[in-house]
């Protein structure tokens, strides 16, 4: 049997090969470094939130919260507690990095990070979701048995090995992100029209050095096809030992470019860190040895005989891992049950790794009608939402519905009459002229929220997206001026 690193494995004839492969020991070093890097990223993220005032903007200012379906019960902490929560995130990030009180630290980190994501849907970002998942997985991975303060404190804890399944689980998670992000780009907008990249790059032609290049149409197409091919194939090249170093250089280059060009914050750092899980397990020891100009340390392989039969706990763990894997594969596919264009109707959009696939802006006004007196009001979202919330809500039908319900409750409490709430929402997708997103004749106050298809969402526009020309003029008397 040959594992992903090309090593010969010990045949364990008594039990299924996969079981013995999952339990085969691997050097802990790579995952320990991954743990440190993830902790550092979380700490830096928390500091960014605090120093840029995002905690106030995202958590203190909103007067209304959009909840995930099934998570309406989640309480909102008092806004004065949120800065403390982010300080805690920062501290926990450092503790994760140091590997101190690891079990408690990682569990708390997962809980706090997940809470921060779940408390308002408008804060959803794919890379925050990924960090939550990675933290959730680390709860089951003892990545503190080496290169950690815990290992220093408790010698009995020390181990240079972790079972292979720890690496497999993390690799699987990162692979899911890349592959689905790539598949999400196999669309006409992305490949045939190079949108929304064309829009984004055309707005960055003023950048020094690269600006003039970005206004070339072919650059948008090259970036679109290159991005799709990168996302769909990079995992294969990272898995293959011979191509891994080159693939990681490409990973670094790709994410550096996205960091420079787009406001995606920590996303490139997270992905560059996440891709480290594909490295061979002992790379940190080799790197250290090279830096010290000493021969690489070899860690003694634990002696073990035949792998015992899986216990009931082992079977449950394997079953849980398979269920998790199934969910990770199935969740991004759920949109196909709804049909239509997910970028338009957004049903099945979240948790599906459709990263940077749309430029979408909307304008929403709610029309409230008193069911008894017939009086009408126009409600602009800013009466209830922050600008950021408004921007997210105006393009996502389930959030439009949530706000409509809230407005209905609010007006009914004031008027003591039943009210009807209709929405006039116009949305522009990837530069197409704006079109109505929801049926303005439907009383949203009567529509139930849920996972079923929303019949009141209007079909997506069918024409091609906009094709932008470069706005620099190459010769005298150029266009437009």
């Amino acid at each position: 049997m040959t594992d992903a690193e090309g090593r010969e494995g010990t045949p364990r004839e008594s039990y299924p090969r996969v079981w013995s492969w999952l339990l085969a020991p691997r050097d802990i070093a790579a995952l320990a470094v991954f743990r440190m890097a993830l902790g550092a990223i979380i700490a830096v993220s928390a500091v960014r939130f605090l120093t840029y005032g995002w905690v106030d903007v995202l958590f203190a200012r909103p007067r209304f919260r959009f909840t995930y379906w099934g998570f309406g019960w989640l309480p909102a902490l008092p806004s004065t507690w949120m800065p403390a929560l982010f300080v805690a995130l920062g501290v926990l990030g450092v503790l994760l990095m140091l590997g101190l009180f690891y079990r408690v630290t990682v569990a708390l980190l997962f809980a706090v990070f997940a809470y921060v994501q779940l408390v308002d849907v408008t804060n959803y970002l794919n890379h925050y979701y990924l960090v939550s998942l990675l933290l959730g997985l680390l709860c089951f991975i003892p990545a503190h048995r080496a290169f950690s303060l815990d290992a220093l404190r408790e010698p009995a804890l020390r181990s240079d090995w972790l079972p292979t399944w720890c690496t497999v689980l993390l690799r699987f998670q990162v692979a899911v992100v890349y592959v689905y992000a790539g598949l999400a780009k196999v669309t006409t907008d992305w490949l045939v029209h190079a949108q929304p990249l064309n829009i984004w790059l055309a707005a960055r032609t003023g950048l020094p050095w690269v600006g003039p290049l970005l206004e070339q149409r072919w650059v948008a197409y090259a970036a679109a096809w290159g991005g799709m091919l990168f996302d769909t194939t990079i995992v294969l090249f990272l898995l293959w030992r011979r191509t891994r170093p080159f693939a990681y250089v490409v990973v670094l280059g790709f994410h550096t470019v996205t960091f420079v060009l787009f406001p995606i914050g920590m996303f490139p750092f997270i992905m560059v860190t996440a891709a480290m899980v594909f490295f061979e397990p002992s790379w940190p020891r080799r790197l250290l040895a090279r830096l010290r100009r000493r021969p690489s340390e070899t860690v003694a392989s634990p002696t073990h005989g035949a792998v015992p039969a899986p216990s009931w706990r082992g079977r449950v763990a394997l079953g849980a891992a398979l269920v998790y894997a199934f969910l990770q594969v199935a969740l991004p596919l759920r949109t196909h049950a709804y049909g239509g264009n997910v970028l338009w109707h957004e049903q099945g959009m979240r948790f599906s790794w459709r990263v940077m696939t749309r430029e979408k802006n909307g304008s929403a006004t709610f029309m409230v009608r008193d069911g008894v007196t017939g009086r009408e009001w126009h409600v602009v979202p800013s009466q209830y939402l922050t600008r950021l919330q408004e921007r997210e809500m105006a393009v996502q039908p389930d959030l439009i519905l949530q706000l409509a319900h809230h407005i209905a409750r609010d007006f009914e409490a004031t008027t003591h009459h039943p009210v009807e709430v209709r929405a006039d929402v116009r949305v522009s997708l990837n530069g197409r002229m704006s079109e109505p997103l929801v049926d303005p004749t439907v009383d949203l106050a009567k529509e139930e929220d849920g996972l079923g298809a929303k019949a009141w969402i209007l079909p997506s526009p069918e024409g091609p997206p906009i094709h932008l020309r470069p706005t620099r003029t190459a010769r005298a008397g150029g266009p437009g001026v």
Partner: protein
Amino acid sequence: MGVLSLTTVLCLACSDTKPKPPSPPVGGEDVRAQVLSATSDCILGTAREFLPKAQALRDATAALRDAPDAATQAAARAAFHEAMDTWQVMEAIQIGPAAPRSTPGGQEIRDNIHSFPLYNRCSIEEQLVSKGYEAPGFATSLVTRRGFLALEYLLFYEGAETACGANSVIVANGTWAALSADERAARKRAYAAVVAADVSTRAQTLVDAWAPESGNFVKTLSTAGAGNAVFPTTQVALNTMSDAIFYVEREGKDQKLARPLALRDCSSDVCPELLESQFAGRSKKNLRQNLVGFRRVMDGCGPDFSGPGFDDVLTAAGAETVATRMREQVLAADAALVAIEEDDLKQALVQDKASVQQVYNGFKGITDLLKTDFITTLDLEPPAGLEGDND
């Protein structure tokens, strides 16, 4: 109603929906940079246009204070209208020094000149009683006691009653009631002169902030890009311009129209008391002038709105449709305003609410386009959007 609708249709029909007059070709430069440069010049030009009018208003109110009669009163009121006509153009192009401090280059000059929708008549009347306008620190006191809104009340309102409630000191102590009509009028004139002088000083500050020979914000905006501390990229500068013209949504549609129309924040059928101009009867004119300011940035600042504007960036990028639709929407909104026969919206609100609703619809058409096609095509952020992470 029918006549008004017909007038609206005719106005739309006779409106200039043709493309704007062609500008001389400019070669070899980024259209975005040209628009930034043209907008800088436009704002400085508008500020310079406003300055002598603010100074005339200062002089006219001083004359009214020193020699009160019907002629000086009429002159002061006329000077107010003149100055306000230009200021309402500036309202829709609050960029840099005029804008809030939270925005690039913001110095909050605008709020000190015109604080709408922040307005507190009772606070002004309390100043009248206490003669707070004579205090040395008055120029830095709350903006709700100063600027055009205070001036409008002081120059145009002649009633004797106060807007203060029973809990106000001037009502509880009877000091308001104790003021004779002559004394109250004299204090109003003195107060108006102080406020107009302050507006004039602020107008000078605004010009100085933009002028090449002093603050030179013209250069700051027109040289956006690498090395510019305020606008490190042209995109940031364009976004600031875009934020400014969102005035037509925040203040125009939502404050000046939706509230009086009782579409929000009003429990009656209509709320004329929520119109911007309460005493000078110029709410309609203010909105028309706001549209002029909007077009100076969107279409161009030259004669008949020629010259570089956002529409040129849209057209150069291949989004002529967005530019054309935007122009049509602005003309439709203006036509709806013109279709209202009365000088002010107050009467129309009561007698022909539908005509004001038409104006609201016109403004909504503009803001729908702004919030969707416009910012999508140019990859701009809506105002006050969080400069945070995205994916």
